[in-house]
């Protein structure tokens, strides 16, 4: 009544094929392009590292081509890049960052002791790539504070931004508690001519939280 094949040599064969596939997989395994060099705690510390930031006034040297060892990468797409960019910047659209060539390029630049400055439309756009590259060990990658918009506003007098603080992100622009407090009677809207939303220049307000 043994109705199943009792000799398992085919089974052994099938399992061996599986093992061979696994062995092939083991030897053809690619080491990942990127690995984390900083753990979580170090990554948090790294965010406060002022040395990892690039200040707008430092752009002067790049634009006039005096400092040779700085490469400026524009993370916006090439359409916007074509409409205008910081002189001397190279276009490296954020969408292309994951490509192998881009990462190899960054590695070459690191080996050549170049400093890489990333910028996007605003600082937010470059924030993510900058953090990631720092975490995976590109300690030559910096982020341009304020981003392109801020540069555009001050491109005539970049040095003056030394005393400005608006690119110091992370600062409350308003007194939140006061603004959001219940206002009895008077309608909020009637307060005339509220501050315009466009980046209003404000005096350096105390110590800006964090480095960048």
């Amino acid at each position: 009544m043994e109705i199943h094949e009792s000799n398992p040599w085919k089974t052994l064969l099938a399992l061996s094929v599986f093992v061979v596939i696994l062995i092939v997989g083991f030897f053809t395994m690619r080491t990942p392009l990127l690995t984390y060099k900083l753990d979580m705690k170090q990554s948090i510390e790294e965010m406060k590292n002022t040395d990892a930031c690039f200040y707008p006034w430092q752009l002067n040297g790049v634009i006039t081509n005096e400092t040779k060892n700085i490469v400026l990468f524009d993370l916006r797409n090439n359409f916007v890049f074509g409409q205008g960019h910081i002189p001397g910047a190279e276009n490296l659209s954020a969408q292309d960052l994951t490509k192998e060539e881009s990462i190899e390029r960054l590695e070459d630049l690191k080996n050549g002791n170049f400093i890489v400055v990333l910028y996007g439309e605003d600082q937010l756009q470059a924030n993510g790539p900058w953090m990631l590259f720092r975490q995976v060990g590109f300690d030559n990658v910096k982020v341009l504070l304020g981003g392109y918009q801020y540069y555009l506003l001050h491109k005539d007098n970049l040095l003056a931004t030394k005393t400005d603080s608006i690119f110091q992100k992370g600062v409350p622009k308003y007194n939140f508690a006061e603004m959001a407090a219940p206002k009895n009677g008077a309608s909020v809207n009637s307060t005339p001519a509220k501050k315009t939303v466009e980046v209003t220049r404000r005096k350096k307000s105390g110590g800006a939280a964090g480095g960048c």
Partner: protein
Amino acid sequence: MNRNYIYLTLLMLILAFGTLMIKKTNEPKQIEPQQLLFELIQPTRYVSTDQVAKMIIQNDPSLELIDVRNSKEFEIFSLPKAINVPIDSLISKNSLLNFGIPGTKVVFISNDDIAADQVWILTKRLGFKSTYVMKGGLNQWIETIIDPKSPVESDPALAFETYAFRKGAQLYFTGAKTENAEPAKVKVEVQRKKKSGGAAGGC
């Protein structure tokens, strides 16, 4: 009994034992850097202040606001029901318990969006899903919800709808009386991010 059965047993044991050997690291599970890079260049993580306001007003039970400013700033002002998780105390068991609860959407808030975005990246690296960043942060919140600017006549109709919604939201959040007291009913699409790429459905 065929001797091949013994070979099979041993082979299978070795294979299973091998899986113990290939464990990568003892660190908490993290997503691959390349995967992280891929995810962080997508703008899908940003939600607008309008969307957040809408969710608060509708009492969306899945919404979880995480305020990443320091506790002093948090005490002075915070959004309703927000939980304070300062960046410095992010990597602790207690703080991390706030994330990754099935069925919740975590929205990070800071003064602007940089700090919130940074926390987003850190939690993403740890593999937490359905986390978002409120674009513009509290500064934007003040500008759009607490003190909305009325649109100019040349603006498209949509701007007026948004404005009507914001006035309603302003009323809700500040208790201020406004000229047009009628409650604004504007549909602001709440973008729900679909589980990216994952396969759906089984048997």
